[in-house]
């Protein structure tokens, strides 16, 4: 019987379950949870998941631990090694090349827009974040995306992002399509408190399932907008022993998820 999963492990498993075989995805530099989710999915239902290192251009490297996708050692086992000038066409311009992306954020709002730039005014911010890099293109151009946050509080779940650098459902409803973006947008938001999706017509965030031991009150108190609750949401299905064993033996042998996201 495996020990209890850490937060990072749980998020990786929940994401892995939503990935289909043959899908295409890009993974950024400092992306332990994203990488673990993809490599776990490859061990389960998606052996031919296709992933490319955003910074380095290595395709489908195999390691049994979480190596930064920028690390040159991904070269040893990659199926292809592309240069950025060749990759940027399908990363920054092409519609629906990637099936999905998994992103983190400083803020996510009730329509699933995300912000990694600033809290406050861009010209004199309260918190200056790292910036946008590929987020705008992945949110705008992938078939769907996931937002994965390791904290859930009123500073992260906001009514409206201070700086929109990744388009979710924009102003809700069909505003994303009216803006001229291709079909897509956020599918799930994952946090320590639960899993969230979006109401089909209004595109407002709603509770899909709740982490074990967490209450709806806790979620409402930690969210700075009216999150939709329909009936009594189920408890999130936690990682199984099998999932956890695969994760720990073949994906994250060094235990980085447990150390970094306990």
């Amino acid at each position, binding site marked *: 019987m495996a020990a209890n999963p850490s937060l990072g492990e749980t998020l990786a498993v929940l994401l892995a379950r939503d990935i289909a075989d043959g899908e295409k995805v890009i993974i950024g530099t400092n992306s332990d949870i994203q990488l673990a989710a993809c490599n776990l999915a490859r061990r389960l239902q998606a052996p031919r998941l296709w992933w490319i290192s955003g910074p380095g251009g290595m395709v489908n490297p195999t390691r049994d631990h979480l190596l930064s996708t920028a690390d040159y050692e991904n070269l040893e086992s990659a199926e292809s090694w592309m240069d950025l000038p060749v990759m940027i066409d399908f990363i920054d311009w092409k519609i629906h090349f990637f099936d999905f992306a998994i992103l983190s954020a400083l803020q996510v709002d009730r329509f699933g827009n995300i912000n990694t730039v600033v809290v406050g005014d*861009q010209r*004199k911010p309260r918190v200056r974040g790292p910036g*946008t890099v590929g987020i705008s*293109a992945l949110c705008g151009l992938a078939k769907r995306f996931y937002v994965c946050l390791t904290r859930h509080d009123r500073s992260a779940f906001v009514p409206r992002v201070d700086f929109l650098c990744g388009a979710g459902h924009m102003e809700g409803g069909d505003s994303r399509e009216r803006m001229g973006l291709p079909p897509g947008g956020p599918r799930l938001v994952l946090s320590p408190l639960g899993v969230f999706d979006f109401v089909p017509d209004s595109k407002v965030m709603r509770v899909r399932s709740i982490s074990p031991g967490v209450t709806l009150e806790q979620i409402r108190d930690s969210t700075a907008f009216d999150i939709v609750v329909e009936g009594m949401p189920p408890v999130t299905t936690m990682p199984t022993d099998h999932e956890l064993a695969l994760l720990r033996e073949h994906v994250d042998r060094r235990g980085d998820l447990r150390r*970094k996201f306990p």
Partner: protein
Amino acid sequence: MTKSKIVSVDEAVAEIPDGAKVALGGWIFNSQPMALVRALIRKGARDLHLIPAPGSIAPDMLIGAGCVASTVCVFISFEQFGLAPHFRRQSENGTLKVYDLDGPAIAGGLRAGICDLPYMPVPDLGTDLPKFAPEHYWPLPSKPGDRRMLAVAAVKPDVCLLHAQQADEHGNVQHLGPPFFDAMIAQASRRVIVSVDRIVSTDTIRRSNHLTKLPSAMVDAVVEAPFGAHPTASPSLYRSDEAHLKDYVRSSASAETFGAYLDRYVRGATSCAYLDTIGGSRLAALAVSETNLK
């Protein structure tokens, strides 16, 4: 015979004028051109306009040392060690002008720069970026039914500072790991300065010529700088020095401690003195080895 392109680190940066548009290569904790950055700080550069590839300590140290008037920000972060301290402080103070660009704007802008075009069309992705950097983004007319497009302005650095693993005297530069944006930055820049960990013969260059991401025609000056990316990694040669990066973040807490950091590692130090200050055993321990994966 055409003369060698090899120059000293101080010669390489000597003619970068105050106020220049300076691009920086590498990627976060990989191949930041630190030997060149330290030389630029020693020289007392002022009012620079930075165009960093996604980076960490290279833009942050230049900002902290008071060399920078404005910066493009695609991504500037210390990742697991937090936000970039000086970039953050001067942005929040409002003393640093920041142009936020996304991937399409830097890629399209560099490509326009390379191509001598005034702009490149990119998809309008519905972000707030154009509102805060109208110099870089403006609407392009599109026909009904066509995708909505923006123009992104050409990015044309006056000079770029890059770090790679090896080069020959003619300026054929090889990346033994991913070149990231380096090749695009080099082609878009008026002057290209590259530090490398080692100089090799042209025969060695030929043996793996697919690694020559910057052929000699695109390189103006080469600096031999062993451990020239320290404290960031030089792919296949050494890993990042996490202890030093943490020390940098800690030292950046106040003007006094950061002044002491600069005195110790930058202002007083030639490249050799820097490596001695870091110390032989520390450098040796950074060797790429399965035993020192973080």
